[in-house]
């Protein structure tokens, strides 16, 4: 199994605070990894470094064997690397006034010639690809509607379709289900798992809710105040462990655990309560 992502001693300080504190990790191709932590723990910052949206203060990020950034400098061929990485955002980040179809076709921009992409001309073959991707996420009927007319869950599925046409080998999802209702959230997580299983995508998904990490991702990396505090099998994530990792901050994660239908373990919930209080 090849290595998909290697992060080596990554540091990032924002004016307010230290966002990433000596983060090192390695993710193999084909893995599905959850990134958990309370808000402000550095999940988004880490993902945004992985796709080269921000440059770190120090440390390196290597993606698919190619250097993405090194000591605060983004690689000159960053666009080529981004093309291999699908990014899914909490707020979907579709262009509202463009059709769903065009939003998905954007995933092909890197491969189309500049002239054709500036004329906004896509071939029948390309449109077919986009339509197939939309069918794969189950929203092909909305292809020619404006993205703004779709519900949140549908918009997020369109964003996944964009990753599919992009033929992304890595999918980074930054809180993809945080703005969705429970039903759509499950749906989007299923699709991510499906992309991982059937298309062999390496998926890194940051989550607010531990129960989704346990249910969908074999491996979890937990961040706390910019540091990796846990990196191991999701099955080992007991409420006690979380309590140890997060101390009083566990409440944010713990509320979700209590309400979680995925974790029907009343005894565990009780023990967690003790840790949290």
């Amino acid at each position, binding site marked *: 199994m090849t290595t998909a992502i290697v992060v080596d001693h990554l540091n990032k300080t924002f004016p307010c605070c230290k966002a990433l504190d000596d983060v090192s990790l390695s993710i193999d191709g084909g893995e599905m990894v959850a990134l958990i932590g309370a808000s402000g723990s550095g999940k988004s910052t880490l993902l945004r470094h992985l*796709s080269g*949206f921000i440059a770190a203060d120090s440390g390196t990020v290597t993606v698919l064997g190619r250097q993405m950034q090194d000591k605060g400098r983004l690689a000159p061929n960053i*666009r*080529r*690397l*981004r*093309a*291999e*990485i*699908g*990014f899914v*955002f909490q*707020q*979907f*980040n*579709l*262009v*509202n*006034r*463009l059709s769903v179809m*065009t939003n998905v076709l*954007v*995933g092909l*921009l*890197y491969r189309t010639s*500049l002239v054709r*992409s*500036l004329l*906004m001309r896509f071939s029948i073959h390309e449109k077919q690809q986009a339509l197939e991707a939309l069918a794969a996420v189950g929203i092909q009927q909305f292809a020619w509607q404006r993205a703004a007319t779709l519900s949140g869950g549908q918009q997020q599925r369109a*964003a996944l379709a*964009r990753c599919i046409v*992009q033929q992304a080998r890595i999918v980074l999802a930054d809180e993809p289900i945080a703005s969705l209702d429970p039903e759509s959230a499950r749906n989007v997580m299923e699709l991510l798992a499906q992309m991982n299983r059937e298309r062999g995508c390496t998926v890194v998904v940051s989550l607010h809710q531990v129960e989704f990490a346990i249910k969908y991702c074999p491996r979890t990396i937990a961040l706390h105040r910019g540091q990796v505090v846990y990196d191991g099998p999701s099955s080992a994530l007991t409420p006690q462990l979380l309590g140890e990792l997060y101390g009083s901050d566990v409440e944010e994660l713990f509320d979700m655990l209590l309400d979680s239908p995925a974790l029907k373990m009343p005894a565990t919930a009780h023990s967690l309560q003790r840790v949290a209080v």
Partner: protein
Amino acid sequence: MTKPTIRDVPLAPPPGNLSTTLAWGVLFIVLAWSWKGADMRPLDLLKDSGNMGTFARDFFPPDFREWRIYLEEMIITVHIAVWGTALSIICAVPFGLMSAENLVPSWVYQPVRRMMDACRAINEMVFAMLFIVAVGLGPFAGVLALWIHTTGVLAKLFAEAVEAIDPRPVEGIRATGANALEEILYGVIPQVLPLWISYTLYRFESNVRSASVLGIVGAGGIGVILHEVIRGFEYAQTAAVLLIIIVSVTLIDLVSARIRQLVI
């Protein structure tokens, strides 16, 4: 700290602070300061009202005998506005994008903005007088004058629309490996297009108004006739020309308002 009960919250908002009072004070001082310079003589309006009544009577009934010429020149005026606006859109798009601070670094947008300021600072009439020297009397000088001035105006409005966009969709485009031009075309333009169209239509309306006076300095259109009839004390004909301008401008305003409603 306890939360105040509903009784503790006053029903009137907190009293206005000092800065509001100060702002009003400054406003009145500015008005008073400008009184003398502007030669304000409101009483003269009453004193000379008789003269004005006589003067106004000369306008009626309007003299429409030459209406064909007036209409022809009015259409030429619209033609000037069409081309002046069209050329300025072509220039305002790149210049507008280049003066948006969320798209380009400051060493690009600062000089471009200053250049656009200069285009905007000088009135169309002044540009028209200059272009008449360069390209001779006639509508073309008017087109060029509108072009320069409107480019300055539209570039600023376009840039402001771009600066107000939601950056997240643009980031979505960037995430796919798209280059800067593609980011603008797929992420920025779709967001600002309705506003851009609205601004452009509005400028077209005001360009028709501007073009109707450009003729006064010799840049073609209905203004030439307006100038002639006023200078010749032909007030009945002046009234006819003014009516034609009013009707045309109103028509264009109505139509473009309808189009604006459709795009937004």
